[in-house]
């Protein structure tokens, strides 16, 4: 496809602009509203540490679309308090995960019909079901 000077590789570059990111640490208290795009983590092919802290807000300002189904398989640390989905993203293969901490999440199960194998030492898995 080449249309008005914009090639596939241009579009590819737009999505690939985040591949250097190794870690994200977000404290939800510091934002009012955040709509996470369903493909937000697609370009982060090196993301190892994702920490979303959510302290003491009554209503969560962070929204995930129902179609959100991807987290990078490179993740080693996943801490996401008040994770709003009932099931882990279908497209997430946690083969590198070392620590998973999903406090006060809405999770009912980890993965739907997916056999999970952990290659690394699975340090801690801390769930509080509401």
């Amino acid at each position, binding site marked *: 496809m080449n249309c008005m000077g914009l090639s596939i590789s241009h579009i590819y570059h737009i999505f690939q602009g*985040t591949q250097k990111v190794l870690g*994200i640490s977000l404290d939800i208290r510091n934002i009012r509203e955040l709509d996470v*795009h*369903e493909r937000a983590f697609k370009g982060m092919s090196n993301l190892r540490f994702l920490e979303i802290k959510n*302290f003491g807000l009554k209503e969560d300002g962070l929204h995930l679309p129902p179609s959100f189904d991807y987290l990078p398989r490179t993740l*080693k640390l996943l801490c996401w*308090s*008040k994770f709003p989905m009932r099931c882990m993203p279908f497209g997430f293969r946690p083969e590198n995960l070392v620590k998973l901490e999903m406090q006060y999440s809405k999770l009912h199960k980890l993965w739907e019909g997916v056999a999970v194998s952990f290659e*690394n030492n699975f340090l801690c898995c801390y769930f509080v079901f509401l």
Partner: protein
Amino acid sequence: MIEEIANDVLGKLLLTTPKDSEELVGIEDHIAEMSLLLQLESKEVRMVGISGSSGIGKTTIARALFKRLSRHFQGSTFIDRAFVSYSRNIYSGANPDDPNMKLQLQGHFLSEILGKKDIKIDDPAALEERLKHQKVLIIIDDLDDIMVLDTLVGQTQWFGYGSRIIVVTNDKHFLIAHGIDHIYEVSFPTDVHACQMLCQSAFKQNYAPKGFEDLVVDVVRHAGNFPLGLNLLGKYLRRRDMEYWMDMLPRLENSLRIDGKIEKILRISYDGLESEDQEIFRHIACLFNHMEVTTIKSLLADSDVSFALENLADKSLIHVRQGYVVMHRSLQEMGRKIVRIQSIDKPGEREFLVDPNDIHDILNACTVSLKKIFLILS
């Protein structure tokens, strides 16, 4: 009568306790000042604040006090930021005014003071009931949330006669808001003490070895009387010859403002690290501060973390306390700044994202990009 004498003895004990094995320059002066404010002989319950700018040595003073005083109380606890972040996790369940959350936090606090595991309380009055006949020492370090004060040390009548509560903070307003008016404001060390601090860190003694006398004075004059910075500089200059010391002087010049100086010193210490250690430093500044050493080792299993952590601790860039890694707030800020300037305009090209606005833009970015593409295509 006998009790009064005993209490008076206690006040004197504080001042005359043999010096710690690790020499802390100027600590006796700080303790003497604190002793006046604490009035240990008095039976009232007293809250005392310690305030002062970041890196001036507040935590060092508080830890020294705790070490000397705690055995004279029935119960004691040193609340640091690790405790506070733990309690924040507890708090994350609902809104901060939820009474259950306060109870959990108070239960955890009681466990610490009384040295009993997993105390659970189900009544807001329980804290007072359990502690009002106990003479306790409570130190709250690095306070940045008034909720912690209100929940843990809300009223003086919760505690038994002679209890002492010491609150350490950068922000004096927290103390005033909580009605604490006995405040020790830590000031910058004198020139003499500043030189001794540098010597202690560089040579493990209070004076300069032969030939280094003038260099020590010059470095302090350029670096400023800033305890955290002097400690880092000393570690950096350890086992170096005079020429190395002289070469460093120009690097400290050209910053008149104190925070510019501080940043420069912290930066010299960072730049002196091997690149592997710098990498671990950035990881800690952005993500792993107050994390357990064992967790960090598992998360970074592909690099030699133990060695890097040892190096960082050796240069005083981190401390390991009870199995947790602690990095000073000023160093954390500098580490985050280093990462930010990896790519100022394009946050997506940095190693770590910690700024909420940047993260907001990145996690939203695909929408924007798609709209842009759509506009161009149409």
